[in-house]
Structures are given as C-alpha cells and as structure tokens.
C-alpha cells in the first residue's frame, strides 16, 4: 500500500449552473521516502490539489488516503510550505517557528522547544535574523523561515506548493539545495508542486504533469533516473536529463496547444437589428 494515495479525486466549486470542475479523476500514489514533483501551468489547479492533500479542503468525490487512513482535516504529520510564505507579520522569525513547534510538541518544556527553534533556524542559516520580523527580510529569507517552520514540526511528509516560485534564479538554486539537503538527511516523503520543469527534474524522483484545468487531471509520469546527489552544472550535459526534460516540455507544450485549439470555437452572433427610435418617440410624444 502506498504512503499517500489519491483515488479518483474530483473537486468542483460552486453549484448548479455555476458549478466548475477544477480537478477531475486524479489518481496518484506516493511511496514512503519518495520525492515527487507535480508540474503544471499556472491556474491548472495545483493549489487546489495541494489543499486536498494537506486537508484544508475536501474532495467532492473520491478519497485521499494517508498511510491507509482517509484524510480529514489538517495534521501535523503533513507539513506545508505555502506559495506565499504565509508568515505572520507581527511575529519575529523565532516566534513564527516557535508557534508551530509549540503546537506540534505540546508536552515539551519551553527550553526544549526553544532549542528546536534555534536548531531549525540555524539549519536555514537565519540565526542572525531570528529576532527580525518578516518585513525586514528578503523574499528568499522569508521562504527559508517558512521552510524552517514546516520542518521544525518534524512532519512525516512535506508538501510544497510552488515554494520557490517568487524567488530569483540564484536564491532559488540555493534553496533547492537546502531543501534537498534536509530531505536527504531526514529521509521524509516529499511532494513538490512547481511550474518549473528544470526544478522538478533536479529535485524529484518522479515528475507528473498536471493537465491544465478546468477538469485538470494528471498526465503520464516521468521517472528521473539521475543519481543523487545531482550537480546542476553537470546536469546540463547529462543525456538522460536532456531527454527527460524535452519529453516533459513536449508533453506540456502539446497540451498547451490542445488547450488553445479547444478554446477557439465559433461564436454565433444573435440576429439583431437596430431599434427604430424616431418612430418610437414620435408615438410617445403624440
């Protein structure tokens, strides 16, 4: 049995005529310790999928199984790194992490909790900024706080919703390495949602494209057979990398084209003729 399983998931928003199906027939299974990336266009329903897995929303049809149990509500076993950091601006870096740790380990003493906070803040190398507030930090630093907050709760699975989407290429690369480092060290299961194919190939064991919504569904999976640790510069010359990358991009481009041709449909204009204003007003006046 897989670690995380999504069976025939459908998710619709609205009701009746305004009902819109965002996800349809999603099937996914992730094994323990695996690093899976889901790649898709913006607006294809990636965040909806993430929220289904972390328990913030419930599927309209189908079931999400985590370790064989259906998911109901959020859980500390599944840590989430949000797309827009979602740090609380009125708390410092340390307090943001502390709040999470305190909830995850209610039985530990204050001193133990503070040690955990210090460890994880150190891990993302933000110890000098531990007493700063999020607005004093750069985007990359904020995302590192979010990473520390999610990991400090020691979740069994990390769910990342485009965590590096808003960062510049260099910061992005550094953070990718940091996340991989932590993942490798603690061997947790990870699910990465991204719109960057290269990022997916660099980080994941398996890439699954998400066909764009409405009615988004998962495409065929691509296995990444590149040994870890992977080297970014060498990766560019790796034949395997090129092959996989081209295959995924081709697939995504194809569905992009498909979507475009779908949307061009003939619009039949209604048969209208202008109203005769002169006569209308003439009668009124008379």
């Amino acid at each position: 049995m897989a670690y995380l399983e999504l069976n025939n998931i459908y998710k619709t928003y609205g009701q009746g005529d305004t009902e819109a199906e965002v996800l349809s027939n999603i099937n996914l299974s992730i094994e323990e310790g695996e690093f899976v990336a889901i790649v898709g266009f913006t607006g294809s329903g990636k965040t909806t999928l993430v929220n289904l897995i972390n328990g913030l929303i419930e599927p309209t049809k189908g079931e999400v199984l985590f370790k064989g149990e259906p998911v109901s509500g959020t859980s500390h076993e599944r840590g989430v790194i949000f797309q827009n950091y979602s740090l609380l601006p009125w708390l410092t870096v340390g307090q943001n992490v502390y709040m999470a740790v305190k909830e995850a380990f209610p039985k530990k003493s204050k001193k133990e909790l503070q040690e955990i906070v210090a460890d994880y803040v150190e891990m993302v190398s933000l110890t000098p900024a531990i007493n700063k507030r999020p607005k004093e930090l750069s985007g990359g630093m904020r995302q590192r706080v979010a990473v520390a907050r999610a990991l400090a709760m020691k979740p069994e699975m990390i769910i990342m919703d485009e965590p590096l989407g808003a960062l510049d290429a260099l910061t992005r690369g550094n953070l990718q390495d940091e996340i991989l480092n932590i993942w490798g060290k603690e061997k947790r299961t990870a699910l990465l949602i991204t719109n960057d194919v290269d990022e997916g190939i660099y980080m994941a064991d398996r890439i699954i494209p998400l066909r764009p919504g409405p009615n988004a569904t998962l495409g065929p999976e691509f296995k990444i057979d590149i040994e870890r640790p992977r080297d970014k510069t060498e990766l560019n010359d790796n034949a395997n990398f090129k092959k996989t990358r081209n295959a995924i991009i081709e697939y995504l481009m194809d569905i992009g084209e498909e979507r475009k041709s779908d949307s061009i449909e003939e619009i039949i204009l209604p048969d209208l003729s202008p109203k005769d204003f002169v006569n209308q007003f003439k009668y009124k006046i008379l």
Partner: protein
Amino acid sequence: MKQSLTLGKVTKFIGLGFLSTIKDLFTGNIDKEDFKTLLRKTIVPLASILLFIGLWHMGAKALYNKEADFKIEKALTDQGQAAADAMEACIASGDVSCKPNTLPSPSQVWDSYKSLLRDHNIIAADKAAFKEKTAALNEKRVADGLDEITYTGRPSFVDQIFRSLKTVFAGFLLALLIAVPLGIFIGLSPTLKSAFNWFIQIFKPVSPVVWYLLVFMIVKTLLIDSNEDSSFTISFISVGLCSMWATLVNTAMGVSSVDKDYINVAKVLKLGSFQKIFKVVLPSSLPLIFTGLKITLSVAWMVLIAIELLAQSPGLGLFVWEEFQNGANDSNAKIIVAMFVIGIIGFLLDRLMLTIQNWVSFDKTDAI
C-alpha cells in the same frame, strides 16, 4: 540591532514631522528639497492661520459695526436725537452697558483666554490655601472616622478641562470594553452577526441627546437609593454608548476579514480556537480595530459637550452652556476660547491614538 532615537524619528512617529524640519533650519542642516518641504509644511499652515485670524477680525468688526449702527438707529427712532448721540458716545467709550453683543474679535478672545488663566491661578491659590488651612482639621476628622472637608468652590476653566477629559476617557474605556469583545464575537460568528445586525443598524445613528435621555431614564432608577451625584455616571455612560459604534463595526469587520493565508496557517498548525483568536485573528485585525478606536475617541470628544450640557455634569460643555446663559460682556469670547480648547484637545487626542496605533500594529502594506 538597537536603533538610536533621534528627534526626527520621534516627531515623525507621533505625526509631527515638521518639527524636525524646523530644527534643521536652525542647525543649518538643510538643502533645497528640505526647504521646499519646510515651506509647505510650516510656512503655508502659518500663513493660512494668519489669514484666518485676519478674516475673523474683519468679520467681527463688520458684525460689531452692524450691531452698533442698529442700536443707534433704534435709539434715534424710539427716543430721538439726544438718546442716539448718547448711545453713540457710550458705544465709542466701550462701556459695558451698551456694548454690542456679537461675534468677539480675536483680540477679545485672547484677552478672555488670559483672564480665564488668571481666574484659574486665583482659584488654584485659593484651593491650596484651603487645603493648608484644613489639613490639621482633616487629619483629626479622619482619625475620628468622619469624612474629610473638601473644597467646594467654583471650578476653574482648567479644572473643567480635566473633568471633561475624565468623562471622555471613562466613556472611551466603557466603549472599548463593550465594543471590542462584542465586535470580536460578532466577527467570528455569522449567527451572532445576524443576531446583532439590526441592533447595530438601528442604534448607530441615534443622536447623543437621545442616548443621554435613555441612559438618564435607566441610571436614575438604578441609583435611586444613592445620594451621590449621578451626573458624571450618566454623562460618561452616554458618551461611551454614543461613541462605541465605530469600534464595534470596525472590530467585527477586521475579525471577519482576516487574510485567508493566516487562517490557513492557523489550520495547518492546528491552533486551538483560543490560540487562533489571540495569535492570529486579533493581531491581524488590530489596524482596523485601532481605526475604529480613533473614530470612537473623536466622536466621544465631540458628543461630550452636548451630553455634559444636558447632564449638568461639570466640564467644558457645562462651561459653554453657563457662559451662554450668563450673558456677561466677555461670555461670547469665553465660548470661543472653549471652542478652540476643545478643538485643540481633540486634535491632540487624535495624535495620541495615532501614536499608540503606530506602536502596536504592524504595517499592513508589508504583510506576508
């Protein structure tokens, strides 16, 4: 890193940033851009104040002349030429008996201000003397288990300002204690919201006078056994009830419109409801709550005058009313003094709230 406090930072924080520009002017530490700012922020307001006083002066003079002409004209038609001449001479001499009663000029208001201050000094001295005189006696009375003898003389203008401030702060505190918790509950629960909505919509526009009468009806009966003067209680409760609506509505709105991201964080961290309210919902709605409190304080100060006047509770409102009834030759000027004092204190209270707001709440534009 600890940042040093400079005059510039402090004045900017309390919203009086132009003060540091003035300092720069004196220390010569100024360039062209700053000079333009200085011009806009200090010279222009000063010029407009002077213009205002000038217009006021001319307006008062015109009204004075109109009133004087009318008086002379009336004397002429009623009593003949001799009486008119006498009246003209009387007005020119500035005698109290025939002084035209109209809008006082700025200089008269300034004189009244000085006389009120003099009056305050006399009363303060009187009070101090009284205290000294009765000190020994009071000690003895306390030892015997009797009440102390207190000064029962007329309150000075400054005393009345403090009485008014006391009423406003008591009312504001009442509004805070009722509106903030109620607003939080209403914001959190749609059921409570629909339960209270009609209540808020109906009572929000009720006038201060009606609030006073309502509170009077209730408090009078509640305190029927007490010999204490209930005017203060009635006036501060009325002020509080009258001014609490802005805070109530703003708090409810702030609480019900917390950023979805923060709510998601609270859910993912599985915060308990107590933690969720105090760690996420309240801090995030603080800016709106403070906006409400700021409005509440200014409304409280505004309705205070009307309510003090009705409740006969000592303070600036009563002062204005008594001066109006009094009709002495400088009454009008004293009313204008009270008007300016009320305005300036209102402005300072607003600054005070702004300072507290800057201090406690995070910058909403920098959120996330």
